[in-house]
């Protein structure tokens, strides 16, 4: 059968005018490298589940993206992450939400799917489960990036919530945020 993989690294008001050629090239290079690694898993007989977990994990480890290491800041100056995984032919799924310090939420979501009778674990319960299975944790400094911190300061000044790619673009307010 045919194999295919597609990835995204976020959408929004990505500002064309503030994207330097260096940033553009770096992002495209990372996207290319990431999708290739997933495609290689598939062509070598790996499962779709293995492929999607691997590539999302790679992006979680890259501070360019709003997930894992590059996560944006909450209003309290902390990081809270969500992740989910779903397998089509079995309809199995697993997710974690509002977890702190977990290095790779996507692998924790997969563990929820495969090692518990539940679908979604949140907050402290999810973190306790992560410790039980030996999932790696990182200190707050690991998740700190100056770019995200500056985004938070601008959002606080304007009292808005923003998508990770918004600079001074469309605000999210009212019922939607």
């Amino acid at each position, binding site marked *: *059968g045919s194999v295919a993989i597609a*990835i995204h690294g976020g959408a929004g008001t*990505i500002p064309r005018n503030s994207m330097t050629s260096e940033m553009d090239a770096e992002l495209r290079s990372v996207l290319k490298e990431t999708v290739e690694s997933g495609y290689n898993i598939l062509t070598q007989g790996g499962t*779709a589940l293995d492929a999607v977990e691997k590539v999302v994990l790679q992006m979680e480890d890259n501070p360019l993206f709003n997930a894992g290491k590059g996560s944006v800041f909450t209003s309290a100056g902390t990081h809270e992450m969500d992740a989910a995984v779903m397998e*089509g*032919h079995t309809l199995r799924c697993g997710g974690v*939400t509002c977890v702190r310090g977990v290095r790779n939420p996507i692998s924790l979501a997969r563990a929820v799917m495969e090692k518990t009778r539940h679908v979604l674990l949140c907050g402290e319960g999810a973190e306790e489960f992560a410790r039980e299975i030996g999932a790696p944790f990182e200190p707050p400094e690991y998740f700190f990036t100056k770019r995200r911190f500056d985004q938070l300061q601008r959002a606080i000044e304007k009292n808005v919530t923003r998508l990770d790619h918004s600079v001074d673009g469309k605000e999210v307010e009212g019922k939607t945020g």
Partner: protein
Amino acid sequence: TVGAVAVDQFGHTAAATSTGGMTNKRIGRVGDTPVPGAGNYANKFCAVSGTGVGEHFLRTLACYEVACRMEFGEMSLEEAGRGSICGGRFKEIDGSGGLVAVDTLGNVCLCFNTEGMYRAARSSKGVDVVAIYD
């Protein structure tokens, strides 16, 4: 937000999505990512991962809608994906975001209604794409 969807040699699909949420969000706010059907979904027809304003995905079950359009509307993956993110209920609420999807035949859909979406795809059918804007 980051995400991936894939179909393997057995025709099995999977979707994975992960996010740090939104800048300056309230503590405890849950976006679409971990909610099955909203920002992440897979079944025997397709796998879908979304990105954008999570609340819009939650209110419209945008990723599940792609699968429904295929199963009940007999649409192609491309029609179903674009219909869900650029039309229907998502459009009604002025939803903002995009999604990536694959079906069991190895077709790929990368669609969004925002200014850009970081995206890439590769398939044995010859798809080889890396893009940010249109």
